């Protein structure tokens, strides 16, 4: 083992078992023989494809935030809201904690993730490391578990069904943008962003 360079070894994060890394074929997933956790999976999407998806996600994200999500009607009165309308309403209703949670998990962190990823991928196309690469990769790692747009989509569905008993419900474009965003998030769930470490080289200074 002393001859193997650390780059060719892979350590299972869930049980500390050490493996020799090998190239995966399309569709292959490497699992830990000890604890069965996923070690690595073949990454079918190249840098260009990932960048295209991030750009798409950005466009959809802008739409999901600008357009109203749903409108309720009651006796000819109508009331709709956007994501930020919701965040502000919670703040005004003495639920600032919830307001901040929603702003962070549904707006600021997803936005950070997309901007950072777009920036890193843009440079990675040429095999280069973007300015601030190391720090941004660490940011990306920490922000990851705290983005919750897909939970919000299910929440919106539940809210619509609850409101449907008492009000006329009109689905607005925002909800479709959110549905599209969920689809993109699902695709990204299988993407291992750590591959960027291997795909890029430091600029010779």
């Amino acid at each position: 083992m002393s001859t193997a360079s650390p780059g060719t070894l892979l350590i299972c994060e869930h049980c500390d078992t050490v493996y020799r890394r090998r190239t995966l074929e399309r569709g292959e997933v490497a699992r830990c023989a000890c604890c069965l956790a996923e070690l690595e999976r073949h990454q079918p999407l190249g840098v260009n494809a990932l960048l295209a998806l991030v750009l798409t996600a950005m466009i959809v994200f802008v739409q999901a935030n600008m357009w109203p999500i749903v409108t309720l009607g009651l006796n000819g009165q109508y009331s709709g809201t956007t994501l930020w309308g919701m965040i502000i309403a919670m703040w005004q209703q003495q639920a600032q904690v919830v307001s901040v949670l929603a702003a962070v998990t549904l707006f600021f962190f997803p936005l950070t993730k997309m901007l950072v990823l777009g920036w890193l991928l843009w440079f990675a196309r040429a095999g280069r490391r973007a300015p601030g690469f190391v720090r941004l990769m660490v940011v990306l790692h920490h922000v990851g578990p705290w983005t919750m747009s897909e939970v919000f989509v299910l929440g919106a569905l539940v809210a619509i069904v609850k409101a449907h008993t008492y009000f006329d419900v009109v689905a607005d474009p925002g909800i479709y943008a959110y549905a599209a965003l969920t689809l993109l998030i699902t695709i990204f769930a299988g993407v291992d962003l750590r591959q960027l470490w291997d795909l890029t080289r430091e600029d010779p200074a």
Partner: protein
Amino acid sequence: MSAFPRAAELGLIGCHVCGLTCRSGPGDEYLEGGHMVCPRCGSALHRRKPNSFVRTWALLITGFLLYIPANVLPIMRTASLNDIDDNTIISGVVELWVKGSPDLAVIVFTASIVVPMLKFLSMGTLLLSSQRGSDWARPQRAKLYRLVEFIGYWSMLDVFVVALLTALVRFGLLSLVEPLPGVIFFGLTVVLTMLASMSFDPRLIWDGRDTDD
């Protein structure tokens, strides 16, 4: 007991953040300010997450304590002309069930009751068994941990439902929805249990197995 080589035994450390395999011999080249630092991403290197048991217990217990008011206190008030109705998490689930959406009722029940309870029970079990170095059902416990990590954040569902309804149902005297303190406690419970599962080190499940050779 098994032939799997473990990083700690080979003098290797995997970086939590970037996944790089680092050597951790006595001649540490990555020493910086007394602790080891990943040469690639600069994050602190640990063989195991620091104070994993204590931190996880603290976060889990706090989360559980907040989960009590989250369930007892109402999370949402619906007010109309002649009627004020305070909903708890459970009464919201019952209402969905009765009003004809049993499928969604099951989803909300799962996200708000089953998942948090599963987290408290699972994390408690994982902590106790790992602290004892027990070799009972290790693969299953490892799987349980991954499940808890994967589903944890879906509990935020009810919080978003209340937030969205608050923003939407604003018809003055006719009909109004307001958030009540229960929803704040619930939001905090979700955050704390997420932090708890993150501070638990699943490798602890497998530690202590060398003694049973």
